Protein backbone atom coordinates (compact mmCIF):
# COMPACT_ATOMS: atom_id res chain seq x y z
CA UNK A 1 0.00 0.00 0.00
CA UNK A 2 2.81 2.42 0.91
CA UNK A 3 4.43 1.81 -2.45
CA UNK A 4 1.20 2.58 -4.25
CA UNK A 5 0.63 5.74 -2.24
CA UNK A 6 4.14 6.91 -3.05
CA UNK A 7 3.77 6.11 -6.74
CA UNK A 8 0.43 7.91 -6.97
CA UNK A 9 1.39 10.63 -4.48
CA UNK A 10 1.36 13.55 -6.88
CA UNK A 11 -1.96 12.60 -8.37
CA UNK A 12 -3.46 11.99 -4.95
CA UNK A 13 -2.36 15.48 -3.95
CA UNK A 14 -4.01 16.82 -7.06
CA UNK A 15 -7.24 15.14 -5.96
CA UNK A 16 -6.93 16.60 -2.46
CA UNK A 17 -6.34 20.04 -3.93
CA UNK A 18 -9.28 19.76 -6.31
CA UNK A 19 -11.70 18.68 -3.62
CA UNK A 20 -10.32 21.40 -1.35
CA UNK A 21 -10.73 24.35 -3.69
CA UNK A 22 -14.13 23.13 -4.82
CA UNK A 23 -15.26 22.73 -1.23
CA UNK A 24 -13.93 26.17 -0.26
CA UNK A 25 -15.74 27.84 -3.17
CA UNK A 26 -18.97 25.95 -2.44
CA UNK A 27 -18.81 26.80 1.22
CA UNK A 28 -18.12 30.43 0.36
CA UNK A 29 -21.12 30.39 -1.96
CA UNK A 30 -23.34 29.15 0.87
CA UNK A 31 -22.05 31.69 3.37
CA UNK A 32 -21.57 34.74 1.16
CA UNK A 33 -20.46 34.62 -2.50
CA UNK A 34 -18.19 32.05 -4.10
CA UNK A 35 -15.52 34.61 -4.93
CA UNK A 36 -15.56 36.69 -1.73
CA UNK A 37 -12.06 38.02 -1.09
CA UNK A 38 -11.45 36.32 2.24
CA UNK A 39 -12.45 32.96 0.90
CA UNK A 40 -10.34 33.41 -2.19
CA UNK A 41 -7.33 34.13 -0.02
CA UNK A 42 -8.04 30.97 1.95
CA UNK A 43 -8.23 28.99 -1.29
CA UNK A 44 -4.99 30.56 -2.44
CA UNK A 45 -3.25 29.60 0.77
CA UNK A 46 -4.54 26.07 0.40
CA UNK A 47 -3.31 25.92 -3.19
CA UNK A 48 0.10 27.14 -2.06
CA UNK A 49 0.25 24.43 0.54
CA UNK A 50 -0.66 21.75 -1.99
CA UNK A 51 1.91 23.07 -4.46
CA UNK A 52 4.57 22.84 -1.77
CA UNK A 53 3.54 19.31 -0.93
CA UNK A 54 3.70 18.24 -4.57
CA UNK A 55 7.10 19.87 -4.97
CA UNK A 56 8.30 17.95 -1.95
CA UNK A 57 6.96 14.72 -3.36
CA UNK A 58 8.58 15.44 -6.69
CA UNK A 59 11.88 16.05 -4.95
CA UNK A 60 11.61 12.80 -3.02
CA UNK A 61 10.79 10.86 -6.15
CA UNK A 62 13.66 12.36 -8.10
CA UNK A 63 16.07 11.64 -5.24
CA UNK A 64 14.85 8.10 -5.11
CA UNK A 65 15.45 7.79 -8.83
CA UNK A 66 18.96 9.14 -8.50
CA UNK A 67 19.94 7.16 -5.41
CA UNK A 68 22.11 4.12 -6.11
CA UNK A 69 20.09 2.00 -3.71
CA UNK A 70 17.14 2.03 -6.11
CA UNK A 71 17.41 -1.55 -7.18
CA UNK A 72 15.66 -3.40 -9.91
CA UNK A 73 13.72 -2.38 -12.97
CA UNK A 74 10.37 -2.55 -11.21
CA UNK A 75 11.41 -0.12 -8.45
CA UNK A 76 12.92 2.20 -11.00
CA UNK A 77 9.74 2.08 -13.04
CA UNK A 78 7.54 2.91 -10.08
CA UNK A 79 9.77 5.81 -9.05
CA UNK A 80 9.71 7.17 -12.58
CA UNK A 81 5.94 7.03 -12.64
CA UNK A 82 5.90 8.75 -9.25
CA UNK A 83 8.16 11.56 -10.43
CA UNK A 84 6.35 12.13 -13.69
CA UNK A 85 2.98 11.93 -11.98
CA UNK A 86 4.11 14.55 -9.53
CA UNK A 87 5.28 16.82 -12.31
CA UNK A 88 1.98 16.49 -14.09
CA UNK A 89 0.11 17.09 -10.85
CA UNK A 90 2.18 20.22 -10.29
CA UNK A 91 1.05 21.57 -13.62
CA UNK A 92 -2.57 20.60 -13.02
CA UNK A 93 -2.61 22.22 -9.60
CA UNK A 94 -1.09 25.37 -11.04
CA UNK A 95 -3.87 25.50 -13.62
CA UNK A 96 -6.39 24.79 -10.92
CA UNK A 97 -5.08 27.79 -9.00
CA UNK A 98 -5.61 30.17 -11.92
CA UNK A 99 -9.37 30.59 -11.32
CA UNK A 100 -8.65 32.07 -7.89
CA UNK A 101 -6.27 34.57 -9.45
CA UNK A 102 -7.76 35.63 -12.75
CA UNK A 103 -10.50 38.15 -13.31
CA UNK A 104 -10.58 40.08 -10.05
Amino acid sequence: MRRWIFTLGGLLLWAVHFVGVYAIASLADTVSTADAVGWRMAALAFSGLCLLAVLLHLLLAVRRLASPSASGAADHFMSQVAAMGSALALLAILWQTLPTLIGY
Partner: protein
Amino acid sequence: MTIERAPEGFAGWPPPILDPAGPFAGPVNILSWILFAMSAVVLVVVLAALAVALFGPKRWRVRLGGERLVWIGGLAFPVVVLSALLIYGLGLTSHLTDDPRPGEVRIRVTGEMWWWRVAYLDGGGREVLQDANEIHIPAGQPVVFELESADVIHSFWVPRLGGKKDMIPGRRNILRLQADAPGVFGGQCAEYCGGPHALMGLVVVAHPPAEFEAWKRRRLAPSLAAGLPSRGTEVFDASGCGACHTVRGTAANGLAGPDLSHVGDRRTLGGGILPTNQGTLAGWISDSQAIKPGNRMPAYPVLSGEDLRAVAAYLESLK
Protein backbone atom coordinates in the same frame (compact mmCIF):
# COMPACT_ATOMS: atom_id res chain seq x y z
CA MET B 1 -51.42 23.01 -42.02
CA THR B 2 -47.68 22.72 -42.01
CA ILE B 3 -44.89 25.10 -41.23
CA GLU B 4 -43.30 26.18 -44.45
CA ARG B 5 -40.73 28.68 -43.42
CA ALA B 6 -39.03 29.60 -40.22
CA PRO B 7 -40.12 33.01 -38.95
CA GLU B 8 -37.98 36.11 -39.00
CA GLY B 9 -34.80 36.04 -36.96
CA PHE B 10 -34.05 32.39 -37.58
CA ALA B 11 -31.92 32.44 -40.72
CA GLY B 12 -29.35 29.69 -40.31
CA TRP B 13 -26.67 31.42 -42.34
CA PRO B 14 -24.29 32.87 -41.36
CA PRO B 15 -24.21 30.54 -38.33
CA PRO B 16 -25.65 32.63 -35.52
CA ILE B 17 -22.89 31.71 -33.08
CA LEU B 18 -20.38 33.22 -35.51
CA ASP B 19 -22.57 36.22 -36.30
CA PRO B 20 -22.60 38.11 -33.01
CA ALA B 21 -24.85 41.10 -32.48
CA GLY B 22 -23.72 42.31 -29.07
CA PRO B 23 -20.90 42.49 -26.55
CA PHE B 24 -21.84 39.23 -24.85
CA ALA B 25 -21.60 37.29 -28.10
CA GLY B 26 -18.76 39.16 -29.82
CA PRO B 27 -15.88 38.01 -27.60
CA VAL B 28 -17.15 34.45 -27.81
CA ASN B 29 -17.03 34.73 -31.58
CA ILE B 30 -13.41 35.83 -31.38
CA LEU B 31 -12.69 33.00 -28.96
CA SER B 32 -14.38 30.58 -31.35
CA TRP B 33 -12.15 31.58 -34.23
CA ILE B 34 -9.06 31.36 -32.04
CA LEU B 35 -10.12 27.88 -31.03
CA PHE B 36 -10.81 26.85 -34.62
CA ALA B 37 -7.40 28.15 -35.66
CA MET B 38 -5.68 26.38 -32.75
CA SER B 39 -7.44 23.15 -33.60
CA ALA B 40 -6.53 23.41 -37.25
CA VAL B 41 -2.87 23.97 -36.39
CA VAL B 42 -2.75 21.09 -33.91
CA LEU B 43 -4.54 18.77 -36.30
CA VAL B 44 -2.12 19.66 -39.09
CA VAL B 45 0.85 19.06 -36.79
CA VAL B 46 -0.51 15.68 -35.72
CA LEU B 47 -1.34 14.63 -39.26
CA ALA B 48 2.03 15.81 -40.53
CA ALA B 49 3.82 13.89 -37.79
CA LEU B 50 1.74 10.85 -38.59
CA ALA B 51 2.44 11.18 -42.30
CA VAL B 52 6.17 11.36 -41.65
CA ALA B 53 5.94 8.41 -39.29
CA LEU B 54 4.13 6.41 -41.94
CA PHE B 55 5.72 7.41 -45.20
CA GLY B 56 8.73 9.56 -44.38
CA PRO B 57 12.29 8.65 -45.34
CA LYS B 58 14.07 6.44 -42.85
CA ARG B 59 16.25 9.28 -41.55
CA TRP B 60 13.21 11.41 -40.66
CA ARG B 61 11.42 8.54 -39.07
CA VAL B 62 14.36 7.76 -36.84
CA ARG B 63 14.40 11.36 -35.62
CA LEU B 64 10.66 11.15 -35.00
CA GLY B 65 10.54 7.74 -33.47
CA GLY B 66 11.90 8.43 -30.02
CA GLU B 67 10.47 9.37 -26.71
CA ARG B 68 11.54 12.94 -27.43
CA LEU B 69 8.57 13.33 -29.75
CA VAL B 70 6.23 12.33 -26.93
CA TRP B 71 7.80 14.86 -24.58
CA ILE B 72 7.67 17.67 -27.12
CA GLY B 73 4.47 16.87 -29.02
CA GLY B 74 2.46 15.26 -26.30
CA LEU B 75 3.55 17.34 -23.35
CA ALA B 76 5.38 20.60 -24.00
CA PHE B 77 3.35 21.73 -27.01
CA PRO B 78 -0.09 21.16 -25.42
CA VAL B 79 1.02 22.68 -22.12
CA VAL B 80 2.02 25.91 -23.82
CA VAL B 81 -1.08 26.10 -25.99
CA LEU B 82 -3.47 25.16 -23.22
CA SER B 83 -1.93 27.48 -20.64
CA ALA B 84 -2.42 30.41 -22.97
CA LEU B 85 -5.96 29.37 -23.81
CA LEU B 86 -6.86 28.77 -20.22
CA ILE B 87 -5.68 32.17 -19.05
CA TYR B 88 -7.54 33.85 -21.90
CA GLY B 89 -10.67 31.75 -21.36
CA LEU B 90 -10.83 32.26 -17.61
CA GLY B 91 -10.42 36.02 -17.97
CA LEU B 92 -13.14 36.11 -20.57
CA THR B 93 -15.49 34.01 -18.44
CA SER B 94 -15.08 36.36 -15.55
CA HIS B 95 -15.54 39.41 -17.76
CA LEU B 96 -18.77 38.05 -19.27
CA THR B 97 -20.34 37.29 -15.91
CA ASP B 98 -20.15 40.72 -14.33
CA ASP B 99 -22.95 41.43 -11.89
CA PRO B 100 -25.94 43.45 -13.11
CA ARG B 101 -25.82 47.17 -12.37
CA PRO B 102 -28.72 49.14 -10.95
CA GLY B 103 -30.93 50.74 -13.56
CA GLU B 104 -30.55 48.03 -16.18
CA VAL B 105 -33.76 46.80 -17.80
CA ARG B 106 -34.89 43.61 -16.08
CA ILE B 107 -37.03 40.97 -17.69
CA ARG B 108 -38.18 37.75 -16.08
CA VAL B 109 -38.50 34.83 -18.43
CA THR B 110 -40.08 31.65 -17.12
CA GLY B 111 -39.70 28.44 -19.06
CA GLU B 112 -42.94 26.50 -19.41
CA MET B 113 -43.61 23.29 -21.29
CA TRP B 114 -43.17 24.38 -24.22
CA TRP B 115 -43.30 28.17 -24.33
CA TRP B 116 -41.87 31.20 -22.55
CA ARG B 117 -43.66 33.39 -20.04
CA VAL B 118 -42.23 36.89 -20.19
CA ALA B 119 -42.61 39.63 -17.58
CA TYR B 120 -41.07 43.10 -17.56
CA LEU B 121 -39.99 44.24 -14.11
CA ASP B 122 -39.82 47.69 -12.60
CA GLY B 123 -36.97 48.97 -10.44
CA GLY B 124 -38.39 47.21 -7.42
CA GLY B 125 -38.58 43.86 -9.18
CA ARG B 126 -42.37 43.90 -9.55
CA GLU B 127 -43.93 42.56 -12.73
CA VAL B 128 -45.50 45.42 -14.64
CA LEU B 129 -46.20 43.79 -17.99
CA GLN B 130 -46.87 40.22 -19.02
CA ASP B 131 -46.27 38.74 -22.41
CA ALA B 132 -45.15 35.49 -23.98
CA ASN B 133 -42.68 34.07 -26.48
CA GLU B 134 -41.47 37.43 -27.69
CA ILE B 135 -39.14 39.72 -25.80
CA HIS B 136 -38.59 43.38 -26.55
CA ILE B 137 -35.43 45.04 -25.41
CA PRO B 138 -33.74 48.39 -25.87
CA ALA B 139 -30.69 48.20 -28.13
CA GLY B 140 -27.28 49.39 -27.06
CA GLN B 141 -27.58 48.58 -23.37
CA PRO B 142 -27.31 45.42 -21.29
CA VAL B 143 -30.57 43.77 -20.35
CA VAL B 144 -30.84 41.55 -17.30
CA PHE B 145 -32.80 38.34 -17.72
CA GLU B 146 -34.05 36.57 -14.62
CA LEU B 147 -34.51 33.00 -15.72
CA GLU B 148 -36.90 30.69 -13.91
CA SER B 149 -38.83 27.58 -14.66
CA ALA B 150 -42.39 26.59 -13.90
CA ASP B 151 -42.00 22.86 -14.50
CA VAL B 152 -38.89 21.14 -15.86
CA ILE B 153 -35.44 22.39 -16.82
CA HIS B 154 -35.29 24.58 -19.90
CA SER B 155 -32.44 26.60 -21.30
CA PHE B 156 -32.71 30.13 -22.61
CA TRP B 157 -30.58 30.75 -25.67
CA VAL B 158 -30.45 33.60 -28.16
CA PRO B 159 -27.23 32.70 -29.99
CA ARG B 160 -26.58 36.02 -31.72
CA LEU B 161 -26.75 37.84 -28.39
CA GLY B 162 -24.77 35.45 -26.20
CA GLY B 163 -24.47 32.10 -24.53
CA LYS B 164 -27.29 30.12 -23.00
CA LYS B 165 -28.34 29.68 -19.45
CA ASP B 166 -30.53 27.03 -17.87
CA MET B 167 -33.88 27.65 -16.25
CA ILE B 168 -34.01 25.39 -13.24
CA PRO B 169 -37.01 24.88 -10.97
CA GLY B 170 -36.34 26.35 -7.55
CA ARG B 171 -33.56 28.61 -8.77
CA ARG B 172 -33.28 32.00 -10.41
CA ASN B 173 -30.43 32.38 -12.87
CA ILE B 174 -29.25 35.72 -14.12
CA LEU B 175 -28.17 36.26 -17.73
CA ARG B 176 -27.13 39.57 -19.24
CA LEU B 177 -27.49 40.12 -22.96
CA GLN B 178 -27.20 43.12 -25.21
CA ALA B 179 -28.06 43.88 -28.81
CA ASP B 180 -25.87 46.61 -30.26
CA ALA B 181 -28.35 47.60 -32.92
CA PRO B 182 -32.09 47.19 -33.47
CA GLY B 183 -33.06 43.88 -34.99
CA VAL B 184 -34.89 40.61 -34.58
CA PHE B 185 -33.05 37.67 -33.03
CA GLY B 186 -34.24 34.10 -32.90
CA GLY B 187 -33.90 32.01 -29.78
CA GLN B 188 -34.48 28.43 -28.80
CA CYS B 189 -34.84 26.19 -25.79
CA ALA B 190 -31.58 24.29 -25.58
CA GLU B 191 -32.19 21.88 -22.73
CA TYR B 192 -34.28 18.86 -23.55
CA CYS B 193 -37.63 19.40 -21.85
CA GLY B 194 -39.65 16.48 -23.17
CA GLY B 195 -42.29 16.25 -25.90
CA PRO B 196 -42.06 19.03 -28.47
CA HIS B 197 -38.84 20.50 -27.06
CA ALA B 198 -37.74 20.81 -30.69
CA LEU B 199 -40.44 23.39 -31.31
CA MET B 200 -39.84 25.74 -28.39
CA GLY B 201 -38.50 28.91 -29.92
CA LEU B 202 -38.71 32.59 -29.10
CA VAL B 203 -37.96 35.95 -30.65
CA VAL B 204 -36.05 38.87 -29.20
CA VAL B 205 -36.77 42.26 -30.76
CA ALA B 206 -34.33 45.09 -30.09
CA HIS B 207 -35.56 48.67 -30.50
CA PRO B 208 -33.81 52.00 -30.26
CA PRO B 209 -34.19 52.93 -26.56
CA ALA B 210 -36.80 55.66 -27.13
CA GLU B 211 -38.86 53.38 -29.30
CA PHE B 212 -38.62 50.69 -26.63
CA GLU B 213 -40.08 53.05 -24.06
CA ALA B 214 -42.88 53.98 -26.43
CA TRP B 215 -43.57 50.32 -27.12
CA LYS B 216 -43.72 49.59 -23.43
CA ARG B 217 -46.11 52.46 -22.77
CA ARG B 218 -48.34 51.26 -25.55
CA ARG B 219 -48.28 47.75 -24.17
CA LEU B 220 -49.14 48.80 -20.63
CA ALA B 221 -52.69 49.65 -21.79
CA PRO B 222 -55.09 46.92 -22.97
CA SER B 223 -55.41 46.47 -26.69
CA LEU B 224 -58.00 48.79 -28.25
CA ALA B 225 -59.71 45.77 -29.74
CA ALA B 226 -59.96 43.92 -26.42
CA GLY B 227 -63.53 43.07 -25.55
CA LEU B 228 -65.11 44.94 -28.47
CA PRO B 229 -68.28 43.01 -29.20
CA SER B 230 -67.83 40.80 -32.23
CA ARG B 231 -68.46 37.23 -33.37
CA GLY B 232 -64.82 36.49 -32.53
CA THR B 233 -65.16 37.64 -28.91
CA GLU B 234 -68.28 35.56 -28.52
CA VAL B 235 -66.59 32.42 -29.79
CA PHE B 236 -63.54 33.18 -27.67
CA ASP B 237 -65.67 33.45 -24.53
CA ALA B 238 -68.00 30.58 -25.37
CA SER B 239 -65.13 28.18 -26.07
CA GLY B 240 -63.61 28.85 -22.68
CA CYS B 241 -60.37 30.31 -24.03
CA GLY B 242 -60.27 32.67 -21.07
CA ALA B 243 -59.79 29.80 -18.66
CA CYS B 244 -56.20 29.47 -19.81
CA HIS B 245 -55.42 32.76 -21.50
CA THR B 246 -55.50 36.37 -20.37
CA VAL B 247 -56.71 39.22 -22.53
CA ARG B 248 -56.34 42.35 -20.47
CA GLY B 249 -59.41 44.55 -20.47
CA THR B 250 -61.72 41.54 -20.73
CA ALA B 251 -62.95 38.79 -18.43
CA ALA B 252 -60.36 36.39 -19.87
CA ASN B 253 -57.80 36.03 -17.08
CA GLY B 254 -56.48 32.48 -17.31
CA LEU B 255 -52.84 32.02 -16.41
CA ALA B 256 -52.06 28.52 -17.67
CA GLY B 257 -51.31 29.55 -21.24
CA PRO B 258 -49.59 32.48 -22.91
CA ASP B 259 -50.96 35.97 -22.33
CA LEU B 260 -52.91 37.01 -25.44
CA SER B 261 -53.43 40.70 -24.62
CA HIS B 262 -51.45 41.77 -27.67
CA VAL B 263 -51.13 38.50 -29.52
CA GLY B 264 -51.85 40.12 -32.86
CA ASP B 265 -48.79 42.27 -32.38
CA ARG B 266 -46.46 39.30 -31.86
CA ARG B 267 -44.35 38.17 -34.73
CA THR B 268 -44.65 34.47 -34.06
CA LEU B 269 -47.14 31.91 -32.92
CA GLY B 270 -46.83 28.57 -31.18
CA GLY B 271 -43.53 29.37 -29.48
CA GLY B 272 -41.53 30.96 -32.25
CA ILE B 273 -42.48 28.52 -34.96
CA LEU B 274 -45.13 30.21 -37.13
CA PRO B 275 -45.59 33.77 -38.36
CA THR B 276 -48.69 35.34 -36.81
CA ASN B 277 -51.57 35.99 -39.20
CA GLN B 278 -55.21 35.08 -39.43
CA GLY B 279 -54.49 31.89 -41.32
CA THR B 280 -51.93 30.54 -38.88
CA LEU B 281 -54.05 31.59 -35.92
CA ALA B 282 -57.07 29.72 -37.28
CA GLY B 283 -54.94 26.70 -38.07
CA TRP B 284 -53.38 26.70 -34.62
CA ILE B 285 -56.74 26.95 -32.84
CA SER B 286 -58.39 24.23 -34.87
CA ASP B 287 -55.60 21.71 -34.43
CA SER B 288 -52.46 22.87 -32.70
CA GLN B 289 -51.67 19.24 -31.95
CA ALA B 290 -51.00 18.59 -35.61
CA ILE B 291 -48.53 21.47 -35.72
CA LYS B 292 -46.83 21.04 -32.35
CA PRO B 293 -47.75 17.58 -31.06
CA GLY B 294 -47.93 17.28 -27.31
CA ASN B 295 -48.39 20.97 -26.54
CA ARG B 296 -50.81 21.75 -23.76
CA MET B 297 -53.50 23.39 -25.90
CA PRO B 298 -56.29 21.02 -26.92
CA ALA B 299 -57.46 20.93 -30.54
CA TYR B 300 -60.82 22.56 -31.28
CA PRO B 301 -62.21 20.57 -34.18
CA VAL B 302 -65.76 21.49 -33.13
CA LEU B 303 -65.38 25.08 -34.27
CA SER B 304 -66.84 25.75 -37.68
CA GLY B 305 -64.73 27.41 -40.34
CA GLU B 306 -66.64 30.58 -39.87
CA ASP B 307 -66.15 30.62 -36.11
CA LEU B 308 -62.47 29.89 -36.55
CA ARG B 309 -62.03 32.78 -38.94
CA ALA B 310 -63.93 35.05 -36.56
CA VAL B 311 -61.88 34.20 -33.52
CA ALA B 312 -58.65 34.35 -35.53
CA ALA B 313 -59.64 37.79 -36.78
CA TYR B 314 -60.34 38.87 -33.21
CA LEU B 315 -56.98 37.65 -31.99
CA GLU B 316 -55.18 39.19 -34.90
CA SER B 317 -56.81 42.52 -34.03
CA LEU B 318 -55.32 42.42 -30.51
CA LYS B 319 -52.39 44.69 -31.25
